[in-house]
């Protein structure tokens, strides 16, 4: 698409310089950390940092960069990846079930408290999570679930819920209600209309929502850092800062750990970017 014309070639140059600067500033840290993860400690130790990698470090493992070998041979890191997948996965499934039902009611049924319920759910995303860690800590101790996956999943559900509900709400509203009405005329009740018609029709929206909820839960740090007591349940967000302590001088390993955790996120975001942008900004534009 081409935009409005520029008044002078200089304006055009200035405009594209600014855009280029923005793109470079955004991408630079990722590329630089990628570079740190593949070069030798000697290259990192140079007085003038190199921009382009020169000496690749493959000493310990042929065909594989040493830093990645360090990261993947670390049992704590591998366990942390599993923990992150479990916590984020269960959170996502529960949020999708609870959230899709609520979003459907908010999209289709006109009940008195509708907009109040909607505001209440939205208000959660403005709520400071840190305010409830003390009471939750005591309660989880009493219930004996401190240090288990559930101690993270339970609060994660609450804070991921507004994201799930508002994304799904936007998708359900886009869907014409005609088909559901037809189903109801044929004798389907509202639950049947919901899971036999609305859910299958909005499958792409449900997938995108699930993915964003997963990323949200994957990135959570405060509850994980508070309620996961050791490496059997700690997710990657907790383990990576510890990595910086364990491998204090091994910057390559720290960089490699950061790359391993963020590469899948970058891929997901680029694949689903169009849907993500429309979903995330739907709430703000209205």
């Amino acid at each position: 698409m081409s935009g409005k014309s520029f008044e002078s070639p200089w304006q055009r140059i200035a405009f594209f310089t600014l855009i280029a600067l923005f793109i470079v500033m955004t991408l630079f840290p990722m590329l630089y950390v990628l570079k740190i993860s593949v070069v030798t400690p000697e290259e990192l130790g140079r007085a003038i940092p190199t921009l382009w990698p020169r000496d690749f470090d493959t000493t310990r493992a042929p065909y594989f960069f040493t830093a990645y070998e360090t990261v993947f041979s670390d049992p704590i890191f591998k366990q942390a990846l599993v923990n992150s997948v479990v916590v984020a996965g269960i959170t996502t499934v529960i949020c999708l079930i609870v959230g899709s039902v609520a979003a459907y009611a908010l999209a289709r049924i006109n009940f008195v408290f509708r907009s109040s319920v909607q505001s209440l759910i939205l208000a959660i995303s403005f709520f400071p999570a840190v305010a409830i860690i003390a009471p939750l800590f005591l309660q989880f101790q009493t219930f004996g679930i401190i240090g288990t996956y559930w101690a993270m999943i339970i609060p994660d559900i609450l804070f991921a819920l507004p994201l799930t509900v508002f994304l799904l709400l936007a998708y359900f509203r886009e869907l014409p209600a005609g088909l559901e009405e037809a189903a109801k005329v044929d004798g389907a009740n509202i639950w049947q209309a919901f899971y036999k018609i609305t859910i299958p029709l909005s499958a792409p929206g449900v997938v995108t929502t699930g993915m964003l909820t997963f990323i949200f839960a994957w990135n959570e740090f405060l509850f994980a850092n508070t309620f996961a007591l050791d490496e059997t349940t700690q997710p990657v967000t907790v383990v990576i800062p510890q990595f910086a302590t364990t491998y204090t001088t091994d910057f390559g390993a720290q960089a490699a750990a950061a790359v391993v955790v963020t590469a899948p996120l970058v891929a997901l975001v680029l694949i689903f970017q169009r849907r993500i942008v429309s979903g995330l900004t739907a709430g703000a534009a209205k």
Partner: protein
Amino acid sequence: MSVASDARPGERGSGDGFFARLRGDFANSERRTGYTMVSPSLLLILVIGAWPVIYAIWLSFQRVIAQETSFAGLDNYATMFSDPRFHSAVINTSIFTVLSVALEFVLGVGIALAINRGFRGQGATRAIALIPWAFPTVVSAIMWRLMYQQTGGIMQYIAEKIQLVSGPILASEQATLFAAVFVDVWKTTPFVALLLLAGLQVIPGDVYEAARVDGANALQQFKSVTLPLLKPAIVVALLFRTLDAWRVFDLFWAMSDRTVESLSTYVFKGVRISQTEFSLGDAAAVFIFVTSLVIAAFFIRGLGSQSAGEG
């Protein structure tokens, strides 16, 4: 956004039309199903959100030692407000919030206006803007810490070359605080820009056309057309960012090896690390909760006056 426009259930109930409508809801099977459908979400909010907040407020007036509680009155708050660590937490968090939100807003408006202009590569630029948003904050902090290191750290090298700093950035608390602002600006400006862009894209083009016919130049157009129409999006973005910055935790935690205190790290240290300061940490948590409410009320009033003025 429906925060401001929504009446509280209580206010809406003033008048018997409300009760009649509520009775109507429960007489109608479809609308009754509506309540059933939102009830799991409401239950979660009640049990995991509302109840802990009440519990947290109660705890802040207690002395908690090894799960035994006894009434402490305002002791926790008195200790907190005279604690130098709490003072530095308030100062650091305030500096961080004001600087990062201001920078993100100014840069975000600029980027949103640029992307909104429309050009070849617009879609790709928007996609790239999303990437830092998807990163876990702790991982962003670790990435930038690598760039701030003395060994192989390009930011440290540049900062020394332009004589911004004389020693290692991460060895100075003050420099680390500004470094943290920089990381937050990197991570969040693109997202602020996308929120504002969504607001810009719903402004109809003929409004600008009219302004141009009236002889308004680009700056006047921005001031008299863009800003007022963009105000709801601006308020939402500012509210969201300010509250987020006010409760900053991950970034300070990972950037400074736990040396630079924020309000949230103060809470965490009390609740999770210290054996004796559990309720002190909880009092600070209540402080964050109450101040967040004040901040939210401030912004929502800003939005409310807007909608009232515009009709």
